[in-house]
């Protein structure tokens, strides 16, 4: 039973990219890695967290594929894998599209207001 539950809890945090980025610290790690590949100790410095904590978060991020790792001499370098964040992007897209459409209509309204203002200005001269 205990094992079953811990497996469930683990599945809940590592199941997909959404859960992986739900943790603010993990988002900070992704932001840092967006600036380029880094070893753990660089992340520890940038985030001001303990190394065990950073390693724990990196493990979760790696399990869902959002972060990749490679060996480089005696260091292990971590980097962002943007492709794994695609489900989140796809989720936001329809929302983004509806705002884009709305703003396109607003562009037309603004164009009218600009022309009207220029017309008023010409009359004032």
């Amino acid at each position, binding site marked *: 039973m205990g094992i079953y539950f811990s497996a469930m809890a683990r599945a809940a945090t590592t199941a997909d990219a959404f859960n992986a980025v739900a943790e603010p610290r993990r988002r900070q790690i992704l932001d840092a890695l967006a600036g380029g590949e880094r070893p753990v100790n660089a992340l520890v410095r940038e985030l001001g967290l303990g190394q065990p904590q950073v390693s724990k978060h990196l493990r979760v991020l790696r399990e869902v594929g959002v972060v990749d790792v490679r060996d480089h001499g005696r260091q292990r370098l971590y980097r962002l894998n943007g492709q794994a964040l695609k489900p989140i992007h796809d*989720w936001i897209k*329809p929302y983004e599209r*509806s705002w*884009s459409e709305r703003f396109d209509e*607003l*562009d037309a309204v*603004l164009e009218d*207001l600009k022309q009207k203002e220029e017309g008023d200005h010409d009359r004032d001269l």
Partner: protein
Amino acid sequence: MTVTSSQSAKVTLPADDQILITREFDAPKHLIYKAWTTPELVRRWWSGKRGHVTLAEIDLRVGGTWRYVMVANQGFEVGFHGEYRELVPDERIVSTEVFEGFPDAASLNTLTLTENDGRTTLEILVQHESKEHRDGHINSGMEGGMQESMDLLEEVARSLR
């Protein structure tokens, strides 16, 4: 007529319970403020291409309320309303927003207009009370598509009769 650069809105999620919408406009900020706060103008853009606005009420003062209703192309009606909390003409509007389909999930929206060389960057920070409400808000963007599928399903069902 000059062609305005049609570009996408950028949506990011700065925190668990926030949404940030950003877009640049080829217009000075006072005109965006005007288009945002004048009912006749809101009617022209607020529904995008998804339907038409049937009601736009704006009582532009702190404590005043607003309400917009649109009928989507698929025929269903969606309403939003809220209250103005802070108004800085041409620069900033803080207001609450309630999607009438989910009346318990109010957000606090901060609109900021920043002008530079006649172009204006518009930002809307949507602050929800929880991640669940924030996620629900984003999913509501799917509503149009979902409604379309339901309509299709209905057609199919009818043809089978």
